[in-house]
């Protein structure tokens, strides 16, 4: 019989035996002091353009060299491998008349670059992805060719999950609601929404979401990616134009491609460029025929998940009204997590939601459930119910997920457990600001706006990604590292996803370790461009922990 030590499949780990109090603490740390709360206010002054701090030139040089060496070595290995070790490299060679699944060139980046740091991705976990996450230990063999699992796990501080408001919990009001839904509705669905899949719970959830967002009606879907990917073909065609931020999510791109609409991209956050583009496009119309476009849709995200920046919504609404375009805002990351009462970017900027034609969001992130929604005026939603493909062809959202959505929404809105929602919102606001300012003061380059719970910290060299990720894992902190193609080639980064479930002390722990690792890896490259006094920041860790909790509540310390 094989022992656990050489198991090559992910083992099923049972739940830990813990008292209910420790379990609760592990999923959602209780607040340690009322000082560690921050109430977000509506942003009144116009959004400053993001300040991009740039590292010294030698860092860029090293980064390029890094890639160069990797690529050259990769090609040499490919050449030698395909010449001498045909069997081992059979995956991208033709075999009995069949083309390989993927070609040598297409898969080069994945095989020769990503494969080397594959142990930093897809780490299997178990249990609730709350304040702590249980990562299942694995041992890598042959440069990540395969793993073995000794059957143990490590409890890590969780900065990786999109659990912004901390609703990933296995006990409490939401769990009770989900369990009740399993009893009443079951775990199954019966067919598409238009056929038999719509239940009273769907209608209730849709109305609740619409009320929360401030739109007349909404629709929900069982998958966030699928919401976007099958959305645009319901009302756009090849005679329509989509003006898209260059950093929009893949799901939007897929959806627009499926609709056949023409696409023009504008530079991320560049409102002047956008206005010029709109003017040009209205004047010139469709290519070749020069006929006017039927509709022009501006597509942006509320909070960009890799940059931590927000769209300039007041300006976008102004432009949209001036030029009679339509505005689509994807609030995948911002809904729930941003704004004085969690109602997303519209609320944060004091924009009336009615001025945005279509608001889309996901239910996976802040609400700890799954799926996506579209909110708009009633006549638009009524039309979309008939014209969208998802409700008529795809599975509906299952009942336990709906129960999780409604209960977490009711908590945020204060209908259930009054006070709890506000505390969660104030905690994530404080936590995000504290970590962002803390990292900047330590000397790191951090992108994004003050209130964004996505905190990307720049690493630049691709070789520092695995180093950072592995060192953090040793220190029991789970982080996400991202690189090309999700970011520009040289701007590899680590992305901290803040959560309301973390306490101030957890962030202190994180800051201390990031400080230590950052020094070892030479990551303190801040040039002062993004600090409020314009000076290079290299604070001592103890000073940061002492002063930042109070300072981070003031807007003056955040220039962008």
């Amino acid at each position, binding site marked *: 019989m094989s022992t656990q030590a050489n198991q090559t499949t*992910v083992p099923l*780990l049972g739940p830990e035996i813990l008292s209910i109090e420790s379990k609760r603490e592990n*999923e959602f740390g209780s607040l340690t002091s009322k000082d560690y709360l921050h109430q977000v206010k509506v942003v009144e002054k116009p959004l400053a353009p993001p300040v991009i701090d740039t590292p010294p030139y030698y860092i860029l040089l090293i980064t390029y060299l890094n890639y160069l060496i990797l690529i050259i070595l990769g090609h040499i290995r490919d050449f030698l491998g395909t010449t001498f070790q045909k069997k081992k490299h059979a995956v991208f060679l033709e075999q009995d008349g*069949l*083309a390989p*699944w*993927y*070609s040598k060139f297409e898969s080069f980046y994945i095989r020769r670059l*990503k494969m080397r740091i594959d142990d930093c*991705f*897809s*780490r*299997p*976990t178990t*249990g609730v*992805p709350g304040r702590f996450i249980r990562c299942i230990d694995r041992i890598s063999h042959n440069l990540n060719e395969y793993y073995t699992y000794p059957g143990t796990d490590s409890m890590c501080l969780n900065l990786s*999950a999109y659990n912004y408001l901390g609703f*990933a*919990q*296995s006990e409490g009001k939401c*769990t009770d609601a989900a*369990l009740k839904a399993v009893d009443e509705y*079951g*775990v*199954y*669905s*019966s*067919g598409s929404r238009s056929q038999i899949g*719509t*239940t*009273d719970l*769907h*209608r209730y959830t849709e109305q609740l979401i619409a009320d929360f967002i401030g739109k007349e009606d909404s629709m929900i879907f069982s998958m966030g*990616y*699928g919401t976007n990917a*099958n959305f645009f073909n319901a*009302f756009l065609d090849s*005679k329509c134009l989509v003006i898209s931020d260059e950093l929009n999510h*893949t799901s939007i791109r*897929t959806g627009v491609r*499926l609709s056949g609409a023409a696409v023009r991209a504008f530079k991320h956050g560049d409102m002047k460029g956008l206005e010029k583009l709109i*003017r040009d496009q209205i004047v*010139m119309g469709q*290519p070749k025929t020069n006929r006017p476009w*039927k509709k022009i849709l501006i597509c942006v995200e509320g909070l960009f998940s890799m940059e931590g920046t927000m769209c300039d919504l007041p300006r976008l609404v102004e432009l949209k009204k001036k*030029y*009679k375009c339509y505005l689509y805002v994807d609030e995948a990351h911002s809904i729930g997590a941003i704004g004085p009462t969690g109602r997303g970017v519209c609320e944060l900027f004091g924009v009336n939601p009615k001025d945005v034609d279509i608001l889309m969001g996901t239910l*996976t992130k802040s*609400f*700890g459930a*799954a799926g996506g929604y579209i909110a708009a005026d009633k*006549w638009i939603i*009524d039309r979309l119910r008939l014209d969208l493909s*998802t409700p008529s*062809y*795809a*599975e509906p959202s*299952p*009942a336990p997920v709906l129960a*999780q959505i409604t209960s977490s929404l009711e908590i945020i809105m204060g209908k259930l457990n009054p006070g709890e929602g506000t505390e969660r919102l104030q905690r994530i606001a404080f936590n995000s600001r504290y970590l962002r300012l803390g990292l900047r003061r330590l000397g790191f380059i951090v992108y994004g706006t003050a209130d964004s719970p996505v905190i990307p910290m720049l690493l630049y060299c691709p070789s520092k990604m695995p180093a950072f990720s592995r060192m953090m894992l040793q220190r029991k902190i789970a982080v996400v590292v991202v690189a090309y193609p999700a970011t520009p080639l040289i701007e590899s980064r680590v992305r901290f996803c803040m959560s309301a479930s973390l306490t101030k002390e957890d962030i202190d722990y994180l800051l201390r370790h990031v400080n230590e690792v950052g020094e070892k890896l030479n990551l303190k490259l801040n040039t002062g461009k993004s600090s409020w006094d314009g000076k290079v920041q290299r604070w001592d860790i103890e000073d940061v922990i002492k002063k930042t909790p109070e300072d981070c509540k003031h807007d003056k310390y955040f220039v962008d």
Partner: protein
Amino acid sequence: MNTIIPEVLPSSIPIPEFVVTSFSYTLYFLHLVLNRVPGGHYVTSYLSKSTHDDPYRTAVEIGLILYGIYYYLSKPQQRKGLQSNRPNLTPAEIDNLIDEWEPEPITDAAETRDFWRLAKIPVVIGSGANNYINFTRDNDKERFENVFNLTSMNFLQLSKKDEVVQVAKQTIKNYGVGACGPAGFYGNQDVHNNLEYNLAKFFNTEGAVLYGQDFCVSPSVIPAFTKRGDVIIADNQVSLSLQNALQLSRSTVYYFEHNDMEHLDAMLTEINESEKRENLPAIPRKFIVTEGIFHNSGDIAPLPDLVRLKLKHKFRLFVDETLSLGVLGKTGRGLTEHFNMDRASSVDITVGSMAVALGSSGGFALGDKVMSNHQHIGSNAYCFSACLPAYTTTAVSKVLEIMDNDNSAVSKLQRLSKLLFDKFNKNEKIKNFFEIISDENSPILHLKLNDQFRSNVFGYTQELLYDTMVQLQKKSVTNKYFEPSEMEEKFLQDIVDDTLKTWNVLITRNIIIAKHETLPIVPSLKICCNSEMTEEELTKACDNIVESMVSLCSTQA
């Protein structure tokens, strides 16, 4: 130093003195500078040599360099030539044009010709998978109670079992609901991995990959393995999910006649011959794409022939088994088991749903290891989407375990399917009006009006529908609408309403959206059975439906 004017210029052309001198000085200094630059003397010696040998060549080269500089400095928009006929407009004219532009409304008005459909969507109180349901329609204006439900696609009803419910509840107590992250970043939990192992083991493939929604699986899996120049040949009756996939694949797409193996053989031969003629540097990836049980007709793809042809012509086989997994075969292992074949060696990519017979949520793709691993990096709906809630995966694992031990639900479903099929197929009255297009093993029975009845009552044929749709598509009309077909759907809905109001039995139209379908589909009625029904119930309901159908059709005819 004075440069002599090249002799090739006819001396008859008078050249002003200052031109000659300034030219000479420029050349002189250029000469000096070039000599100082390392490697510059190569340039000068080349220039002097080439001017000497062929002065026209130098002129052409200088022209080329000047054009290069011009090209580099010109604006990209002009360079492309895409908008080259852009008129020169004054700012005032531009403002006028912008003021004049009136866009269309963001969507069509809600209340148009097909708005009646919205009022016909049932809103179930409780779960729609039960056999007796209460529901409302048209914003609570119509109420129905204790209706016998023949529309649910939860065919096996295994996830209703107490053991599965307990597993799901226990998982919620241990994992919460959402996974809160994509698979690449800590979203993949041990239960997800284990479900993948279980699916692969149950269906006898090397790997399985989970997706968040069944409708998104094919449009994500196919584009992950195709690029421009690859070849796909698909059945011309495939569902919308596959049509989307083909559109996103970037490949050259051909269609073969629905389940017509001779036609497929001929087309494959032709494709391979034309490929040989082109003499490509590498063979493209080639796929045959079809479905297990067809969404729009309920018949079954002839797998043995497909496998024979795929091997003969060196294609790969992609089968969308959304409706057939858990339904066909002695133990519910799908199309391959139905034909007594081995999945790993016959089908290259299988796509399935966990929201249909397996009774949970999500979708999955099955296949060999290399292909499965590539999806982890190359398939958009996998990489850029959060993982399924943990409880859905443990529920499916449990259902698979039950199916492995006990095939009674599957065999009962097959018995009922045959009963359902016979009830309509052996009825002569029905045959006067309807044609049964589904297979006897399909738990979804599709009934469509026969050609004669359709042309008598609605005045069109399948061919006419096809031609009209092709015409509309050529004109790139997006709101494809064909009046007679809409009337037919309304008539079918009348049958649905009649059986509902007279007999308290719910059936459904095959719900399609004409504007999305690139392949012409004739409206049909759908009747679904599941393994929790009794034979008496089903027989009685079928008799009632037949009565409604016959009486309504007779009045029309």
